């Protein structure tokens, strides 16, 4: 203690202010060497500082693990540790058919044959606009999109001899549902949208199979209108 009368080391301490400033620069000077040169290994050299550096790395590793497990995918709507799994896996909550996405996918996947205006190409590709095949019972169009269709087909009074591959098999349930919902509501069509669960159900029911023939489809799902 600087000025405590009972201090044993009082005499060691300089009492004048200028001497203390000098010892401040000594203090800095001595530590500048310590910062540059680490202690040489000697007897009694402590391994502790080196060990703790490894422990710190372990801490960092743990921090990463903890964050990935307890952050609920960094979602802004998950609040409770006990319920993150439900919230996180709910993902896209209830499926809402998105016609804008459906249109975008239609233009990528379907428009090369059926055309952007849904009228098809006379003599080659049948139209979708106003077509009874795509409206009414949704399972018919889902099956055609999933498995494809080949053979002579009559659409709106015109005959086509087409070969449509199983384009839908490569799309996700939600994507296909969006496309079909779009097709069933665009160009004057007005049928109900299709849910992704329905697509999943049909996909499971038909399994892996070859293209339908128009006859087979019509046996299962006859056209509601001509």
């Amino acid at each position, binding site marked *: 203690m600087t000025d405590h009368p009972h201090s044993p080391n009082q005499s060691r301490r300089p009492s*004048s202010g200028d001497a203390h400033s000098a010892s401040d620069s000594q203090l800095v000077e001595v530590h500048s060497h310590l910062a540059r040169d680490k202690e040489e290994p000697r007897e009694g050299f402590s391994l502790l500082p080196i060990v703790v550096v490894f422990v710190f790395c372990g801490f960092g590793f743990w921090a990463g693990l903890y964050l990935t497990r307890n952050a609920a995918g960094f979602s802004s709507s998950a609040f409770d540790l006990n319920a993150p799994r439900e919230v996180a896996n709910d993902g896209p909550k209830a499926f809402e058919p998105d016609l804008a996405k459906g249109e975008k996918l239609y233009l990528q996947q379907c428009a090369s044959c059926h055309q952007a205006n849904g009228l098809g190409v006379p003599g080659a590709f049948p139209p979708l606009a106003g077509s009874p095949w795509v409206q009414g019972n949704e399972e018919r169009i889902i099956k055609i999109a999933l498995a494809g269709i080949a053979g002579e087909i009559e659409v709106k009074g015109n005959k086509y001899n087409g070969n449509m591959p199983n384009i839908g098999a490569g799309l996700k349930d939600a994507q296909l549902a969006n496309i079909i919902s779009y097709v069933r509501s665009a160009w004057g069509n007005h049928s109900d949208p299709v849910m992704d669960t329905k697509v999943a159900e049909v996909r499971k029911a038909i399994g892996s199979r070859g293209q339908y023939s128009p006859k087979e489809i019509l046996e299962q799902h006859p056209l509601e209108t001509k």
Partner: protein
Amino acid sequence: MSQDSYRPSFNLSRVDASVAQPVRLFFASAFLWLVLASMIAVITAIQLKDVSFLGGCSLTTYGRLKALESNLFTYGWLTNALFAINLWLMSSLTRFELKNAWLANVGGVVWNLTLTYGAYQILMGKMNGFSLLEMPKEVALASWLGFLLAALWPAVAFSRRPTGHVYVSQWYILGSTLVFPITFALTQLLVLWCPAQGVLQALVHSWYYQNLHLLWFASSAIAAVYYFIPKESGRTVAAYYLSTIGFWTFFLFASWTGPATLLGSPLPLWVQSVGVVAALLMLIPFAILAIHFLGTLSWNRGISQSWNNTTLRFVLVAIFALILWGLLFAVSSTRGFNAVIRFTAFTVGLEHLLSYTFVSFVIFGAAYFILPKITGLLWLSPKLVHLHFWSCAIATVSLLIITLGGGWQQGSGLRADWPSALFPTFLLLIGHIAFVINAWGMLCSKLSSGYKPTHA
């Protein structure tokens, strides 16, 4: 007190003389606020036992007095004292002679006037509902400017330092003086002036609270500990090369710990988890601080040597408090533990551990070292020093047992009764009065020239 302990006043060094005026102003006002805050603390402690005590007048109801006490303690006592210590330490380490002491004085006066006005408004019941932001927002700009004028001199001193090694104390002082004004300004903006939406407001407040305690109070106090240990023990800091890691991890993780105090709140889960991770990663700087402080003092009977040195005795208690705080904060930020101690006296105990047992004890130790240097006088009465140390040490330990233990019982037993801390609070007041009599005797005796301390 023996006669041979008396020495006539010695001349101040040029560096000390240049900062003496503002340092004395900061210390004198800090001591005033300390005594006031401890008196109010006794009243609020009585009110926790007997609700009707002084309850007849709205001025002296618990809600106002409690807010007043915590504001006076943090902005009056801790902040003023750290102004003084940071300024003195930095100018000593950089051999900086302060030319514009009057500017620092103006800063100190402005800071204390705004605090007085804020305290008056709190007493009148005009306060904000955020802990330690209770003072009305109109004074914020003035107190911010006051802070800049009073606290930024260490940064000026640092920019004019002689080239060479920058000692670790200087890093912590520079960090704390630069971080606090930024934090304060942003928090005033986002919490009071143009409030952020919803939970973001609480998040910003928790960020402020942790920055205030860790990056302003604790960081400044750590700087002082780094100075006094080698200075007073004559040893070099053990494993000094780790200090860079310690410094950067401390400043990196400390301001992320805010959400750890808001676990279970409607903050997004990932924000809370980031807080938990930051609180546990704070163990890295705390481990380094423990290696530095205890490692330096532990070998070759260093602890008992420090025990015989007034400054180091206070600092020693403070070091154990700091390490204990780091451990307890990490443990209490784990989700299971936090669910028990949330909203209990345990959190009060944690805050006391940091802001009192660590920071205030460092300030006491530093004051015992610095005041003789800047007044050229000796402490009047060693008996008062002993009274101060022992009453504060006993009080703070019993307060910690009461709040931490009582808080744990509250949480695990779901009990509503708040543990009473009247006895230790009263003991703290006694210790502080002993300290302040001694210190003011020193500060005043210089003013009335010719006065020499007399001995019983």
